[in-house]
């Protein structure tokens, strides 16, 4: 298994290590990592996790589809990469998650707003006005051509020249080809005509350019005003409703109790299979996002178990010889049981511009495990917190900080024996820190690579 995981890491990190992780669960442990661009493979070296995802969310965002579908498959070592290399500890865990939903946005409405705006009307009018100016220029140039052509004595040649240049003027869509044509015009014995025509052209060109620039200046001011006004009226909105469900499995070794005389019977290989089913909603209005997911979890209290490393030595003796065998065992001790719970995640995010080069994301979140079917093994808890994250204009995460109030109802403390209970005021319980990675669960399309430390 170790070899397989290491091989997969090496292969995937050197070939297809492109992935963007999206939503994650309340603890940030079992994630719903989804690549934005249809399909992809992701590798989280820190968590020794390999993820494969497939979805159509990109089409949903662009408005091509309203129904979203996706699946996600991940496999990881619960003990992380460090233990994988240092001690060979492998607690294989795999998750399979699927989701289906429906998303509506006002993209088309905003596009219509743009197309029906005064801004677009001005753009069209500006073009028409400039076209008219050019038509006037052409007409005047033809008159100037006639006047200049009087310098050509032979009528037949004069008519031919007028016809040829008139054709050029009429067919030109801008002044550039006319200018180019006249400057390159070469005919024997028509130098005086060319010189005169060029003078007339330059005069008319100057008049035309002045008029053109005048129109540009006037429209520029109006268009800027109307565009700003239009953009201020655009209010992006999106609502997404989705169902999610999946199964997961974990294989680990439990330490039951010391078993004598055969110590090896103190350990038991345990295979856990669980599942989840839930629903969620995401709402976006302007630069604010609200995400809520509510799920039923068929899980266990694995997170409460304590991991210990054991060394089992056996000795075989024969005569004056002794053979020592040593085996390292990572086992989990503590009361273990499957426990069903419900899970509620809520995130509210606002995005604000700090300067021309950086933005601030402010988030409020709630992570709650509710309705534990067996309080003796897994307590209910609710964590609330806030985070401030700084990103640059290109979306690169610069850093941030978070403040969290864990277990606001003190359920974990209350579960302890009476003489060990130490209920502290919320202020003294606050945990805070600098964030180098973060995640905000329950928000679909949350495309940040980093994740908040578990």
């Amino acid at each position, binding site marked *: 298994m170790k070899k397989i995981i290491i091989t997969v890491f090496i292969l995937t990190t050197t070939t297809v290590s492109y992935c*963007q992780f999206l939503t994650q669960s309340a603890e940030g442990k079992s994630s719903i990592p989804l690549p*934005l661009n249809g399909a992809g493979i992701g590798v989280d070296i820190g968590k020794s996790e390999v993820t494969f995802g497939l979805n159509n969310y990109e089409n949903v*965002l*662009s408005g091509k589809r309203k129904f979203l579908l996706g699946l996600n498959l991940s496999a990881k070592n619960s003990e992380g990469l460090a233990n994988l290399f240092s001690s060979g500890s492998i607690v294989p865990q795999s998750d399979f998650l699927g989701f289906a939903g429906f998303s509506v*946005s006002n*993209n088309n409405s*905003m*596009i219509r707003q*743009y*197309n029906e705006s005064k*801004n*677009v009307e001005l*753009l069209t009018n500006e*073009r028409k006005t400039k*076209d008219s100016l050019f038509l006037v220029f052409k007409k005047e140039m033809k008159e100037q051509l006639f006047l200049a052509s009087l310098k050509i004595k032979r009528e037949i040649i004069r008519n031919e020249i007028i016809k*040829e240049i008139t*054709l050029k003027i009429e*067919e*030109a*869509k*801008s*002044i*550039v*080809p006319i200018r*180019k*044509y006249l400057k*390159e015009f070469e005919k024997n014995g028509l130098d005086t005509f060319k010189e005169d025509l060029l003078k007339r052209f330059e005069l008319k*060109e100057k008049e*035309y*350019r002045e008029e*053109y*620039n005048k129109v540009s200046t006037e429209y*520029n001011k109006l*268009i800027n005003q109307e*565009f*700003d006004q239009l*953009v201020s009226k*655009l*209010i*992006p909105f999106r609502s997404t409703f989705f169902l999610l469900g999946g199964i997961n499995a974990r294989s680990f070794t439990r330490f039951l109790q010391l078993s004598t005389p055969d110590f090896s019977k103190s350990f038991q290989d345990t295979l856990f299979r669980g599942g989840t089913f839930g629903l969620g909603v995401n709402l*976006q*209005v*302007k*630069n604010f*996002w609200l995400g809520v997911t509510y799920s039923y979890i068929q899980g266990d209290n694995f997170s409460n178990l304590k991991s210990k490393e054991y060394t089992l030595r056996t000795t075989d003796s024969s005569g004056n010889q002794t053979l020592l065998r040593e085996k390292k065992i990572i086992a989990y001790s503590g009361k273990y049981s499957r426990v069903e719970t419900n899970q509620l995640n809520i995130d509210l995010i606002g*995005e604000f*511009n700090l300067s*021309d080069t950086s*933005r601030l*994301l402010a988030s409020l979140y709630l992570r709650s495990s509710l309705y534990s079917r067996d309080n003796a093994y897994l307590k209910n808890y609710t964590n609330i917190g806030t985070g401030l994250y700084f*990103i640059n*204009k*290109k*979306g690169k*995460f610069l850093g941030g900080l978070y403040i969290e109030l864990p277990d606001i109802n003190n359920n974990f403390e209350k579960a302890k024996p009476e003489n060990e209970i130490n209920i502290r005021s919320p202020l003294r319980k606050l945990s805070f820190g600098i964030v180098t990675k973060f995640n*905000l669960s329950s928000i679909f*399309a*949350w*495309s*940040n690579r980093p994740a908040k430390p578990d």
Partner: protein
Amino acid sequence: MATKKKAAPKKKSPPPKKIIKEQPPIRIIVEVVVRFEGLSADNKFKILSVAGATEVLTGNFSYAFQRQGITILTFSIDDYIINNPPDSGSFQKDVTDPNVPQKVRLQVTAREDSPGGNGTISLKFENKDVFATPEPIPFSGGVGKINKLISLPQ
């Protein structure tokens, strides 16, 4: 009853004399002009003239968006508007500015789909880059916008 008088026969007039005027000789000049001009690679308005026929081609624009967590709603050069543009594409459009360098108006509107969304636009005119580096689309209130007059490469 009155009787008709027999009309007297008309006297035949002598045939007219042929008068031959001397005219200058007619010269017919047939001039065929075959011309091929103005087809340089960097000429944004290609003028192809064969035997007097002229075809004026418009300027060729190509664009590419790099985006993450955003959707481009509209993209326009002057009044040439593309709604819901794909991530890259090209089109031809007249550029009428008589100034050097020529200028056109670029407008982009976009929306943010996820927090931290961002994007840039790269634009080429006649295969020459308009921006030295991709132009970022600034966002505010979930809406991204670009509205500026841009100079086209010569």
